[in-house]
């Protein structure tokens, strides 16, 4: 009996200890994670949609975790601990048979597209192997007042009647569109993004506007709506083949549409309700020129060639029909005399920096570097510290660890005094003791440029 007690009882005791240490304790600690700035609980309809998502096992093919790896950049910024606070049950997933959905609400905000895609994914993505969720929709003779039927392509539409989303489909859509990463505190419309193609393709490719690159970008960003054939979907997404704007010698409208998106437009006498997202904030001028040229030279189109410079010009003119509001740099930073006091620094740090570097200053291992004990932050010479806050950084190596995800620039949204306040807060927290920074030093660094 003693032997049995030793084997059964002893091993179970050992195992219980290990289960506590490796399962329960991490669970307790991590359950207390605080929400990141801008991370909000779900609304009732979104929560209902999440239940539909779970009941139908969507997360067996779609992850909701962006890893701090170059290959994951297409899905958004790396996930931070605070992102998961309202996610119970967690839906991080273990397989990516389909794309990650962490940021799908931002990546594909078109309601119409989402409905068509849910009804039958192959109606918009011919190669898709996702199941059809047509049973979340109802076929009715005539859509009730106020309900827009889903504009399905004829090949997928029922023989009779029109398709309208059921309550479950509406909830699921609300949930999908709610999947937007809380934005990193980034300067609005300031910096021209670096080439997305650089992240998309093999590094050493200089001819950015090459047709191959244009085609690849088109496939990744545009084909789900406008289709690889350029034909669009009748009634839902306009064709690019034979499209007036695409074939016009003056490319302004074409470029403007890619940069800023569009909605409620009438093309070839057909009105399209669906909104096209803007790509100006994620694609560089060269990328947009490459896409435009691909569109202008495919499917029998023959528009004049677009250069990156033309894109830059259109971008510089801003969004047409929008009053040129005061630059955020002026509005965001009310002149405050005692700008560099620590309290304000802490407030600014919490709003702008803590989502990545964490309130504890320890960052997130592998994703966002620690500021605690950071060499640049503790250096008597603040040049690198100030420069990084002003102009951002990416692919830096800190303490022997390489960080792939870029840090946004804050020079265009924060005043010199604000930046000095943040720097001083960082230099006097978590055991750091860097020399004090003045607004004047920031101004001097700003004057030097990037």
């Amino acid at each position, binding site marked *: 009996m003693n032997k049995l007690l030793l084997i059964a009882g002893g091993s179970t005791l050992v195992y219980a200890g290990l289960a506590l240490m490796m399962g329960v304790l991490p669970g307790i600690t991590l359950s207390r994670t605080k929400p990141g700035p801008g991370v909000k609980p779900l609304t009732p309809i979104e929560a209902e949609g999440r239940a539909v998502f779970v009941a139908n096992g969507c997360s067996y093919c779609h992850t909701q975790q962006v890893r701090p790896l170059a*290959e994951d950049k297409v899905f958004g910024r790396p996930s931070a601990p605070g992102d998961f606070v309202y996610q119970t049950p967690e839906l991080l997933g273990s397989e990516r048979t389909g794309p990650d959905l962490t940021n799908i609400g931002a990546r594909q905000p078109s309601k119409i597209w989402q409905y068509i895609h849910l009804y039958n994914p192959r109606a918009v993505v011919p190669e898709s192997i996702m199941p059809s969720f047509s049973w979340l929709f109802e076929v009715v003779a005539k859509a009730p007042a106020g309900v827009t039927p889903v504009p399905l392509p004829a090949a997928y539409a029922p023989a009779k009647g029109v398709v309208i989303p059921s309550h479950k489909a509406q909830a699921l859509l609300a949930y999908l569109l709610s999947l937007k990463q809380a934005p990193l505190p980034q300067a609005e419309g300031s910096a021209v993004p670096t080439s997305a193609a650089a992240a998309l393709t093999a590094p050493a490719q200089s001819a950015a506007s090459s047709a191959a690159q244009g085609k690849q970008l088109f496939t990744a960003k545009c084909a789900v709506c406008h289709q690889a054939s350029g034909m669009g979907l009748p009634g839902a997404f306009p064709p690019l083949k034979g499209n007036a704007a695409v074939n016009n010698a003056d490319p302004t409208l074409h470029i403007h549409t890619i940069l800023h998106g569009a909605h409620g437009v009438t093309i070839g006498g057909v009105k399209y309700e669906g909104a096209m997202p803007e790509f100006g904030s994620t694609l560089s001028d060269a990328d947009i020129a490459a896409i435009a040229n691909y569109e202008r030279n495919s499917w029998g189109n023959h528009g004049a060639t677009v250069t990156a410079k033309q894109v830059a010009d259109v971008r510089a003119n801003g969004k047409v029909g929008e009053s040129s509001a005061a630059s955020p740099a002026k509005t965001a930073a009310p002149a405050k005399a005692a700008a560099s006091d620590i309290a304000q620094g802490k407030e600014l740090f919490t709003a702008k920096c803590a989502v990545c570097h964490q309130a504890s200053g320890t960052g997130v291992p592998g994703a966002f570097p620690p500021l605690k004990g950071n060499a640049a932050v503790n250096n008597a010479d603040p040049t690198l510290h100030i420069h990084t806050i002003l102009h951002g950084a990416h692919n830096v190596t800190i303490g022997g660890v390489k960080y792939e995800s870029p840090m946004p620039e804050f020079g265009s949204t924060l005043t010199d005094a604000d930046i000095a306040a943040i720097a001083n807060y960082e230099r006097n927290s978590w055991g750091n003791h860097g020399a004090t920074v003045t607004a004047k030093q920031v101004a001097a660094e700003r004057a030097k440029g990037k």
Partner: protein
Amino acid sequence: MTQAVVIDSPSARQQDDTGLAAIFSAYIISATCWLLFATFVGIVLAYKFGAPDFAPGEWLTFGRLRPIHTNDTFYGWASIALVGLAYYVAVRSCRTSFYSKKLAWIGLGLFNLAAIAGTIALDLGYNAGDLEYREWPWQVRLIFLAALVVTAWNLIGTVAQRTMEDIYLSNWYTIGGVLWTCIIAIVAILPWYQYGLGQVAVSGYYMHNAVGMWFTPLALGIFYYALPKLLSRPIYSYALGVFAFWTNLSFYPILGAHHFLFSPLPWWLQTTAIVFSVAMLVPVLGGSANFLLTMRGRFGDMRHSYPLAFIFVGVVGYLVGSTQGTVEAFRSLQEVWHLTNFTVGHSHLTMYGFVTFAIWGGIYTLLPAATGKYPSRTGLALHFWMAGVGSFIYVISLSIGGTFQGLDWIRGAPFIQSVVDMQPYYVWRGVGGLLMFLSHIVFAWNVCRMTFGRSANVIRLTPAVSDGVAE
């Protein structure tokens, strides 16, 4: 022992033997039904990868069938079969009778009740949260937990009334496995530390332990009993088996953190996990070497003995699958393979190549010994070769395809490219899966022969000299 089949001498021993045979048979028949059902669902799922509009609708949609496939192979097939084998090993190796036959029947009922309720719940959309291997609603998992408790109680009771001083090694593994899994089930059910990221930590713990602290120890327990019996030769090193028991227990649960290499877990947890991933090679290499050395010089016997061939494949599956697990834990390789179909290949290598082959080896060795009824050699051959070739095709195609999938992502191809590139490998997976499923039909037939069939008229002395087939 097959004299037991000679009827009409209603001694106590006779009753014990028939009782044991009946319980053992019932567990295996039950498990076989779940295997057929779960792998049929698997075939439907595999087909959907090539024809996504096949079998549409709410009840047959991919996301509902997928957890039915995994949970029923885990908790219907493998769990019930392993518990049936564990009971037989406990009763025989302790030279005693059941502590309680009634508890064994109650346990079987609870296991089946849980699997049936879980399957229905999942198909109706009552999924506890898409959390791998614990999708059943918690009420259903409580039924499963009750079945585990009943089993642990009955196994311990049986071993406690053994007629010798020592407890044979197999029982260490089986009793340990059942008790540890009770803890795993409780940790997974309690909600208080499972919010957001906290639940991610528990999920990693659960996925890791539900496989490695449940199926692994029970399957190893079968090896330690069936292999010596089959070869009529003792295990090469008993002490090494004991050593592997304690090292497996101490190291394996620590590694759970290697599922969180990209998460904000404390650094010391991650370092510990990576270092002990290497230490885990001790029980894996030591255990496999122990089995292979027990077989030394007798590998040729596989030509005559399919039960031995099944066990050999199981041992190789254990060695390769577990070593692959260690390698996958390295972050540089995880960058390519994580989230791809490579993982699906890995889980089938371990759950099928190791656990399922171990179960089959155990059944073909021990079930005839209990019932005195044997499958035909043709049935064994068909089962072995179709299952072996099928799973080989399955694992290889998903490993290659998954690698290409990961490389597509790394080179930044549009996502849909990785879906298109997987197509030929999905087809090959379907081919392998179909062979596997057909082999299960043959297996079911073999189980019929071993339970409802006619007894062998040749009286066999011990299974040790048997080749496990009817003449």
